[in-house]
């Protein structure tokens, strides 16, 4: 018996079920952003890449840790940015560029109100 492994397996299986439940309700409209969002979540592997840098003590280890960190960081940063870009496009009419104005600072709020 591996009690620690058993706990890990339990967590894994329950997380799978949560994933099925949460995701099976998403409408087709959002499937591409969803795929992209799920894609950025597996960027959590960056945490793993960081942890192997701790145990790296030779050249090969450093090379692996470097590549893993670079890969994982590209996944996580790119994933979230591209999902955000996609979702930014989903907005209701009227499509006045209000979002840009709001992002430029609160100064314009006073005028428009």
């Amino acid at each position, binding site marked *: 018996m591996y009690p620690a492994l058993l706990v890990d397996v339990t967590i894994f299986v329950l997380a*799978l079920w949560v994933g099925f439940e949460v995701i099976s309700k998403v409408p087709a409209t959002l*499937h591409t952003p*969803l795929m992209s969002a799920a894609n950025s979540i*597996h960027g959590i592997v960056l945490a793993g890449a960081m942890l192997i840098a701790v145990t790296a003590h030779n050249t090969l280890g450093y090379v692996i840790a470097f590549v893993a960190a670079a890969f994982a960081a590209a996944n996580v940063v790119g994933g979230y940015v*591209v999902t955000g870009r996609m979702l930014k496009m*989903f907005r*209701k009419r009227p499509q006045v560029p209000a979002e840009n104005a709001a992002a430029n600072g609160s100064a314009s709020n006073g005028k428009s109100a």
Partner: protein
Amino acid sequence: MSTFDWVIQLIYVLAASCFVMGLHLMNSPATARRGNQVSTSGMGIAIAATLAIVVHEGGITVTGWIVMATGAAVGGAAGMYSARTVQMTAMPQLVSMFNAVGGGAAALVGIHDYMTAGATVSASTSVTTVLDVIIGAVTFSGSIIAAGKLQGVVNSAPVTFPGARIVNVILAVVAVGLGAYLIASPSTALLSIVLIAALLFGVSMVMPIGGADMPVVISLLNAFTGTAVAMAGFVIGNWALIIAGALVGASGGILTKLMADAMNRSIRNIIVGGFGTGDTVIAAAGPGGDVKAIAADDAAIQLAYASKVIIVPGYGLAAAQAQHEVAALADLLESRGIDVSYAIHPVAGRMPGHMNVLLAEANVPYPQLKEMDDINPEFARTDVALVIGANDVTNPAARRAGTAISGMPILDVDQAKSIIVIKRSMGHGYAGIDNELYVDPKTSMYFADAKKALTEMAAAVKTLVA
């Protein structure tokens, strides 16, 4: 368990909750952006907690710090740059590349852990390491090929050769068989053979699959990456990786099934490949003289005097990047009081929801985008159905048995009072069969690139109503 461990684990639980909440908020377009923000903050705190572990554990060398920081900086910058600059039409390739690097990183984590642990590795760790390396490596090479096919760098037609299937089986057997042997007797050399076999298997798995099926494959590989990351979590004993990986594994699995269902094909069928290789082409007489071509002016008259128009976008729209032109034409028609909506087939384009993203980019409000089951009853009441570069998803042949697309759910475009099809040629869709819609007496063909055609039509409508 120290206080530090408690705090870290609780932070990981918080991060995992953010991921679940984030995905849950993706249920509706109205909350989806918040969902992404919640998920991003979850990732932020998970990474911060991991950084705390690295500091707390000590033992990391200065080189280790430099390697980690520069690696993350280089990768992060590359990810940021590509995500900011990518064209919306090239989104599927980019998602596939992120899959590749995610899977690659997961495999590297497993490899590194295995090399460090050496012969002292326990059987349970060996199992998850082998799974991590195999799944991660297959995802890495497979995703690169999938992205290459979509980008046109790799031949998007199914590439196959005699005995290809046997090679596939051999590679799979080598990877899994040696992997199983490794569990009994750990060896770094053998692990590298497993790695190479898995990488080759990723290539040979995706090469025979046609471009039409790439969305399903990317979704499947997304699920693979999630699973690989969860396995990496088992290897290094990190719950954040296990939970997040399992969530993604489940989501990718569901999405893959939804997409395969929409095409009325089983996932196995897709992976085995051969779809669109040409051997499914039905040797029917070409539609020839029955096709009716139409000029911009005539199309404009039909559109301008309709009371209800449904636009059916397909891959041709994405390829021509004509999303802004179609939105402009729709606005013009709407300003005349015409009821305009868009019929979105689940697999139109190259990814599920691909059309929605493109049209959203052109500021088409999402309530106008109707899903197949909602819009199908409306075609009978529609004056003009404007089909833009969509082929197989409109082919009435799907309703009959014995064709390559039999049973695939389609948009009932042929029920509309008249149909205008914008297409570059009479060329076949991915299924490689003639589209019976095009020879329907109610159908007129407008042979042009979608962007050019829509611009011309909008100009003609303007002249007409001026």
